[in-house]
């Protein structure tokens, strides 16, 4: 009788989750890194804040800056 390979599904899901989107190119990875943790993080936050200030449905009656 052949033995069946046991696959840890939860571990495989974790690995895929941590690996990021497989469609993203190396250049795209670099862009996203600059936005969130690199030289463009300040500009990214400013753009997010501007959305809230420009749209009262999104941002409400007052701004919620940290």
């Amino acid at each position, binding site marked *: 009788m052949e033995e069946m390979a046991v696959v840890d599904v939860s571990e495989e899901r974790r690995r895929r989750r941590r690996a990021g*989107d497989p*469609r*993203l190119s190396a*250049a*795209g990875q670099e862009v*996203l890194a600059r*936005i969130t943790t690199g030289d*463009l993080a300040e500009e990214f936050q400013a753009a997010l804040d501007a959305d809230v200030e420009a749209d009262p*449905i999104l941002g409400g009656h007052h701004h919620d800056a940290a």
Partner: protein
Amino acid sequence: MIVVDEYLAVRVVGGRWPEGLPDDEDLVLPAARHWRLLQRIHAPGDGQLSELLATLSTTDRDTIRFPHPEVLGVADPRPLLDEAARLAARYGGTGWLTGETLAAGLTYGRALWFGTQRNVGRLLASAADDLGITVHVVT
């Protein structure tokens, strides 16, 4: 489900898993926060950020527009909307972004995860504390 902000969502999509972010549950981004990411794609400004995003290929942009379901989910706003409106009214007209984020936090484990303190906001932090929602910041 782990509720994350725009920073963590983008980092995870990019394959740069933040230290301290649990990896044993699915991640979910509130729809209002996905909306803000989509504004960067579809309504760019004139700064360096917009110039850089314009260089992304269609496939790369699609990773933000339509996140891979094994990596990041976008919360269906419909089941959260009533609670979001209730919370927005309770805390003084917070708007959809904060109301929905708080509602997602209440629904999914009473926790919210952010990639930077600056993106939390004083009002959200105060309301989360009042509601018993733990706000985590992992950088």
